[in-house]
């Protein structure tokens, strides 16, 4: 039962559907292979944040942002380890993609927040599962996109000239070929559900919490490897700080530190500049005793949270019973089994640093990246949010050029093979900006489809 189409897309998440819709609108026939019964993947499970700059929503909030500032922030937060060409591709196509998503029917929340790696508020919120559903429906409406669920791509197929022109797929026990005249886009996600593969690159995260789509086991990566594909950023797999270590219901990180909280370890001591990327915070946290920490905040910081932004919904965490509350720091210390005098001293020292405008311990200057004034922690009740690092995505993978062509280990494009979404390495580099994972899924998915369609 071999199938023929124009473009084959592996993976039914945000990148896959953005690529499919873009290709279909250009008149191409598309087959999407999704190995699970349901589409959405890690995209649907995510926090629903997309990083865009210069949008109407920002303008409505009097936020001055630009592609150039976004570029600067992406490079900085990536510790300049990221691929300049890819960062430029993201920046050059982000605003048109934001508008394209809106035209497709994706609804963005009105409130814009600042988070990891952002000099100005640029977290654009969506319901991520809804977003994927809307794009899937839009793609289906074109009449050119065929979605095959429960069908797993197994191997890439090349023609005699070495050009990728399809995949071998498996549905149940039936193996068949899905041929694509324009080639194959790998949008199959990362590999955070493959413990053995993660261990190869980040053994320090062996005991971390892993949250992601069940299908994220690296199968797309392996298919490309077999053809000689190169990789980027593999050593920068990191957990995201702020996941409650023992709660199994709320899968999202909570970043009270970006609203002014401090992070302390089980000894009651700060251990990091809390304004840096939550990936770097994750690295610092996992190295603490028991691989865990507490975000310490007061009433004013709690009330400054934003219940419409999942990583900043502080009051909701309190309602869910995940935040510990006490009238005094001493009582809070008792609840989290930290020596009271240590916690009181740490908060007192931190408050004096806020007053002095100088943090001699860790050099914290802002709430997050280069945004927001620090605040004292002094207004009861006080709160502690238990936190560890959770690996939500691997954010590393195939080396691609700015046109999303997969590059082999000798620096040459693999003809007919493209990639988009979490499977792509090189955009994030050493750390991570909130919203850049979903952002790159949408932006790079569209670029990949355009490149494939232009062949």
């Amino acid at each position: 039962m071999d199938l023929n189409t124009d473009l084959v897309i592996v993976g039914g998440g945000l990148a896959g559907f953005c690529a499919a819709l873009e290709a279909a609108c250009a008149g191409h026939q598309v087959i999407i292979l999704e190995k699970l019964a349901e589409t959405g993947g890690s995209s649907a499970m995510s926090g629903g944040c997309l990083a865009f700059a210069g949008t109407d929503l920002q303008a409505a909030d009097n936020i001055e942002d630009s592609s150039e500032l976004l570029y600067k922030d992406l490079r900085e937060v990536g510790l300049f380890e990221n691929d300049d060409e890819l960062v430029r591709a993201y920046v050059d196509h982000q605003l048109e993609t934001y508008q394209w998503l809106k035209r497709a029917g994706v609804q963005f929340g009105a409130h814009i927040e600042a988070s990891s790696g952002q000099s100005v508020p640029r977290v654009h919120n969506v319901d991520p599962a809804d977003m994927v559903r809307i794009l899937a429906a839009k793609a289906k409406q074109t009449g050119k996109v065929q979605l095959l669920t429960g069908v797993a791509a197994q191997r890439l197929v090349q023609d005699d000239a070495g050009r990728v022109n399809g995949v071998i797929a498996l549905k149940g026990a039936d193996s068949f070929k899905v041929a694509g005249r324009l080639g194959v886009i790998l949008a199959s996600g990362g590999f955070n559900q493959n413990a053995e593969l993660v261990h190869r690159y980040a053994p320090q995260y062996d005991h971390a919490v892993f949250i992601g789509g069940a299908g994220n086991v690296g199968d797309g990566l392996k298919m490309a490897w077999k053809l000689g594909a190169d990789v980027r950023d593999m050593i920068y797999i990191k957990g995201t700080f702020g996941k409650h270590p023992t709660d199994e219901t709320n899968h999202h990180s909570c970043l009270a530190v970006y609203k002014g909280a401090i992070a302390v370890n089980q000894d009651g001591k700060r251990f990091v500049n809390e304004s840096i990327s939550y990936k770097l915070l994750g690295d610092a946290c996992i190295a603490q005793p028991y691989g865990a920490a507490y975000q310490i905040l007061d009433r004013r910081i709690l009330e400054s949270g934003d219940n419409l932004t999942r990583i900043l919904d502080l009051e909701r965490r309190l309602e869910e019973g995940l935040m510990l509350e006490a009238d005094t720091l001493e009582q809070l210390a008792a609840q989290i089994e930290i020596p009271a005098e240590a916690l009181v001293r740490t908060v007192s020292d931190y408050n004096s640093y806020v007053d002095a405008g100088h943090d001699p311990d860790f050099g914290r200057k802002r709430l997050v990246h280069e945004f927001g004034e620090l605040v004292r922690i002094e207004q009861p009740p006080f709160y502690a949010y238990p936190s560890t690092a959770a690996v939500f995505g691997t954010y590393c993978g195939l080396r691609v050029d700015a046109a999303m062509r997969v590059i082999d280990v000798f620096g040459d494009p693999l003809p007919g093979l493209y990639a988009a979404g979490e499977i792509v390495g090189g955009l994030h580099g050493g750390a991570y900006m909130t919203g850049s994972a979903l952002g790159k899924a949408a932006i790079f998915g569209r670029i990949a489809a355009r490149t494939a369609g232009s062949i």
Partner: protein
Amino acid sequence: MHIAVLIAGVADTKRPLERPKSGNWKDSVGEQATPFKLSPFDEAALEIALKLRDRDSNANITVVVTDGARDLALMRSVASFRISAVLGLPPPPQHRGDPAWLARHALRAMEQNGKAPDLILMGREHGDLDDGMAAAYLADSWQLPFIGLALDVHIQEGANGCLSFRRSGIGSDESITLPMPAFASVSNDKSNRLRHPLMKNVMLAKQQSFPLIAPQADETPSMKVTDAEPPAASARGTRECRILQGSLEEQALELAAYLKPGENTAHP
């Protein structure tokens, strides 16, 4: 103050039932291959004990786990609340759900230095095989003052040795005072939702070992497990929900037929 919590794990349907090392499913009955979790009622009992300890730093807690005592994950989940002693008292398979067996053995397991606890708490149902009568049976057997369906417990100030229990009454909550030692079954509500353990204590619990108490067999088993086999496919969800009709025997036969693989197509 010494608080004892008597816990029976309930089947954890999210964790797969692993085939016993022997390969024979009947060895899974009462063995560690069976995955258990805390019931909401036992969680509430444990939370009430933890709250009492929060208020009285001298209080210590003993937890005795019956069903699920051989499930290391369950024992660790209990120990992760920094419990003074977590002990297993696994009933023989033929005595699971048998309050008379519990009455004979559980009180001794909960003793500290030969002394009975000041307060014994247990969930309103003791595991999957109790319909709610075990607590009252145990209180009667041990001749302890008893309150059923408690939601919270406080040490009464100014009334030495008395405990104040809150439970839902008709129209409003009611408060009942009992002298120590006392015994309460606990129901769950928002006020006694079990807290999350601290990561530190989760990690420390992983290093703990949990003594198993094995009372001397006090009778020859009247039942033995002859066979056990999980169904090839779950019958759940294949049919619309409805109330079974007929005599108890007829209902039991229909239910068994529904659950047995290959025989669940006979009835709509």
